[in-house]
């Protein structure tokens, strides 16, 4: 083998907030609305996947060369909780060995109700094991608290499972839990959705994500809608639901800090300080809207490091074969099979900053873009007239600091953001 040059390809801009995302593309059963890449967990090569992922962790770790600290780790999917505890444990061990994880890092695992264990004892043990691995935040895909709707969505759990798993997570010591909620499921009214939201709020999670159901091509729902078996909730009802949920959550002490994300305020701030910021905002997810770096690891995972946006190959065989055949010491991160690889231009950086930033309660500040107010509007001169029209319509607030969406503006946020790409 020919001598390869020493590894010069290491990160050079230090001290940036950085996250790690690990993707687990396995599910017990694919949901009817899901268009994501995932495989049936049953009979899947989870062991081989674990081995490949560890090698990817080593490869990518070498790139950082212990010169950068990690602020958050997120184990997402698919369903990470279908992995064996021993597999996750090996992976987390590799993560800690190859990356410098801050002591107070947010470490989240997605765990779907009903996937944790067949018996309470198993569930309890699994949750304990996650705690031992250092996982300090749990994200549960609840989606609904109505069993008929859960069935329609193709979920494998019931509302009773959610209540039980949530209680056990608390017992295991999880004091930072997110619950996902989906509204505008075909047939669902605003009143139904509010009942769901109330049931979720009653559990008292630190964080709630609310998503309006989108019919994605290639999903069973899309087919069903095509055949007229289900009818999409109309826009008016959908937006009514969204705004009702927003105000219910605010009333219940949650900060609406991103289009679809809510975090519980500190008890002393509830009902007092309208500007208060919740201590439970997701550090990891906030990184996506702050344009922080994140290293994506695993099949089809996306990453954004030092201005480069990449996506790993979605071909499971290619992924497993590559890491079976290569030793991390011999490869560069750019050798890892990818489906996308794009070096952001200055303008890419700027426009992404604006549209991701606008998702946040704070909106985007001129200072974050590295431009003055005047420079900013010179770059986006073509969007200014439209932006001002949005502002007159009460959809966008433009001030000396920057711009941010109003709650009404969120409804048509795409058309506002489109002025800045």
């Amino acid at each position, binding site marked *: 083998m020919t001598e390869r040059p020493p590894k010069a390809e290491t990160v050079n801009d230090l001290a940036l907030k950085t996250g790690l995302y690990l993707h687990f593309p396995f599910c017990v059963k694919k949901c009817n609305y899901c268009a994501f890449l995932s495989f049936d967990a049953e009979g899947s090569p989870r062991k081989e996947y674990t081995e490949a992922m560890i090698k990817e962790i080593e490869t990518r770790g070498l790139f950082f060369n212990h010169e950068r600290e990690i602020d958050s780790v997120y184990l997402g999917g698919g369903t990470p909780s279908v992995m064996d505890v021993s597999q996750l444990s090996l992976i987390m061990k590799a993560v800690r060995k190859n990356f410098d994880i801050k002591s107070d890092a947010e470490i989240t695992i997605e765990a779907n109700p009903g996937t944790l264990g067949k018996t309470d004892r198993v569930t309890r043990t699994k949750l304990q094991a996650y705690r031992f691995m250092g996982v300090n935040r749990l994200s549960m895909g609840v989606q609904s608290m109505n069993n008929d709707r859960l069935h329609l969505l193709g979920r494998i759990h019931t509302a009773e499972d959610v209540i039980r798993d949530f209680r056990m997570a608390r017992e295991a010591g999880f004091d930072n839990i997110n619950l996902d909620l989906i509204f505008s499921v075909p047939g669902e009214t605003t009143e139904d959705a509010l009942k769901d939201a109330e049931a979720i709020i009653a559990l008292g999670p630190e964080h709630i994500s609310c998503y309006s159901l989108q019919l994605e091509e290639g999903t069973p729902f899309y087919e069903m809608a095509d055949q007229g078996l289900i009818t999409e909730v109309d826009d008016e009802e959908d937006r009514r639901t969204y705004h009702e949920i927003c105000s219910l959550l605010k009333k219940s002490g949650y900060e609406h800090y991103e289009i679809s994300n809510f975090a519980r305020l500190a008890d002393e701030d509830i009902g007092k300080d309208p500007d208060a910021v919740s201590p439970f905002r997701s550090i990891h997810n906030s990184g996506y809207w702050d344009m922080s770096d994140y290293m994506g690891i695993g099949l089809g995972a996306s990453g954004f490091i030092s201005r480069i946006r990449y996506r790993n190959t979605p071909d499971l065989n290619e992924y497993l074969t590559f890491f079976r055949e290569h030793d991390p010491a011999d490869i560069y991160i750019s050798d890892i099979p990818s489906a996308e690889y794009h070096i952001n231009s200055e303008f890419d950086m700027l426009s992404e900053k604006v549209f991701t930033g606008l998702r946040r309660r704070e909106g985007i500040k001129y200072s974050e873009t590295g431009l003055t107010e005047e420079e900013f509007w010179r770059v986006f001169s073509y969007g200014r007239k439209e932006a001002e029209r949005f502002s007159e319509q009460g959809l966008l607030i433009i001030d000396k600091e920057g711009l941010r969406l109003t709650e009404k503006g969120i409804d048509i946020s*795409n058309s506002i953001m489109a002025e800045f790409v």
Partner: protein
Amino acid sequence: MSYLDNIRNFSIIAHIDHGKSTLADRLIEKTGLVEARDMKEQYLDNMDIERERGITIKLQTTRLKYKAADGQEYILNLIDTPGHVDFNYEVSRSLAACDGAVLVVDATQGVEAQTLGNVYLALDEDLEILPVLNKMDLDSARPDDARAEIEDIIGLDASEAPEISAKTGMGIDEMLEKLIEVIPHPEGDPDGKLKALIFDSYYDSYKGVIIYTRIFDGRVRRGDIIRMMNTGKNYEVTEVGYCIPGTVPADELKAGEVGYICGSIKQVADARVGDTITLASNPAEAPLKGYKKAQSMVYCGIFPAEGEKYENVKDALEKLQVNDAAFNFEPENSAALGYGFRCGFLGLLHMDVITERLAREFDLDVITTLPSVVYKVVMKDGRVLDIQNPSNLPDPTLIAHIEEPIVKADIMTPNEYVGSIMSLCQNRRGNMIHMEYLTKTRVQLHYEIPLNEVIYDFFDALKSRTRGYASLDYEFLRYQTAKLVKLDILLNREQIDALSTIVPEEEAMAKGRGICEKLKDIIPRHQFEVPIQAAIGQKIIARETVRAYRKDVLAKCYGGDITRKKKLLEKQKAGKKRMRQFGTVTVPQEAFTEVLKLDDGR
């Protein structure tokens, strides 16, 4: 024996897809001009658009050499003719350059309206017609029926019509022998005064306008000063030659021959189809008969789309005009669309071809407004105005009456579709003159229809109602008084001039409603309600509302979504660029052409 005995000047006439171009290809191949392997499919149709649509618009002429069974070599000048009703005049001039015509009839289909139209044109020119039956390689060929139709409908003896397959080459030799026998050789006096018919011309950036001509009398060579007898302009000949195809220079062209002439002519409008060329020093007494200046029948506005430069559109239109004497344009200013051009065309197909060429050859993004015909507006003070732009219609109180162009439309169809065609024509204000059974199953319907009703989507409607079996031929007949009004469209209470149309009064309500419904589908939802109204003068006659949109948001935007989301936003922005802004309302550019394609089953 004269050189004239060994020349045959002929055209091939056929209905659109009865195989004319394929036959031309086969002849070129057969006479050894082009090697089979070099044959581009359908050699004579050389414009992309023509090839795609399977129609011939610009003419191509080819000189073929054929060694006949009698041992002699013959020069066969194949003069191609355009295959569409919009180009009737050009067809007639091409035919005038011939001494005979090969009539191709699809043995699986029989005789069609356009075939008939062209046959009549050929008969008008006293041409000898040789019918041939094509597509004989197909199982569905019915040569006896086709023969009977030719005899019954056209009145030609088809008993000896060669049976061929242009596709496989079957029967081509027999056809050529028959052609030499049936079609007469040209006559003319090579020593007489020059009389040459222009039957086509096109602009070449090196040689200037290249004129395709048939010499009737006299001769012409390089250095001669020629005169266009109808336009009176003189030019020095820089080159003459034969089209073999392409341009191959020769010493001279003389009576009976077909070839080309160049003379540093700057635009085709100076060498008009149908004009007669003579020598300035020794002119003929009278031009050949039949010259006619091409008349625009259909007009529309062409405007630069958002982001397209006015100058670019102007340059392109000028270039197209250089090559197309039938196309004309002048500057126009629309409140809605800004600066643009009012363009005149022979017909709807001609318009489509030009707008498509703007997009394809010049890569331009233009907005085409609704087509309009030319109305004669008789004012109370006796003046008569030609109005083709609805926005220019004078105040109705000053108008005595309006006249609209009426065409004579001949529709040929299998008898089972007669009922649905009759209801179509009736809905289009057609007036049936008579109906005749050409054979037991084939009917020809003769109608008088306002041209205005034909130019929108009549072809499409006819085709869809007859599963493509009916065919149409039309020509201008006369102007006729009609009760017409200007129908205006208002978006968010603002009148959009580019959407105004002139319609019959009794149909205004239905049309207004139709346009509003159509616009409702085309105009995207805004953040506010957009009323769409149709009005005659101050009176609102129809209304629709585009509801405000409530939702345009991506709920999830995490690590893997950012790239996808960005592409989506870029697409959204690009889509918006293709829109026109009218006050606060955004309208997609296609609205201007799509709006009158009213798919209401009429």
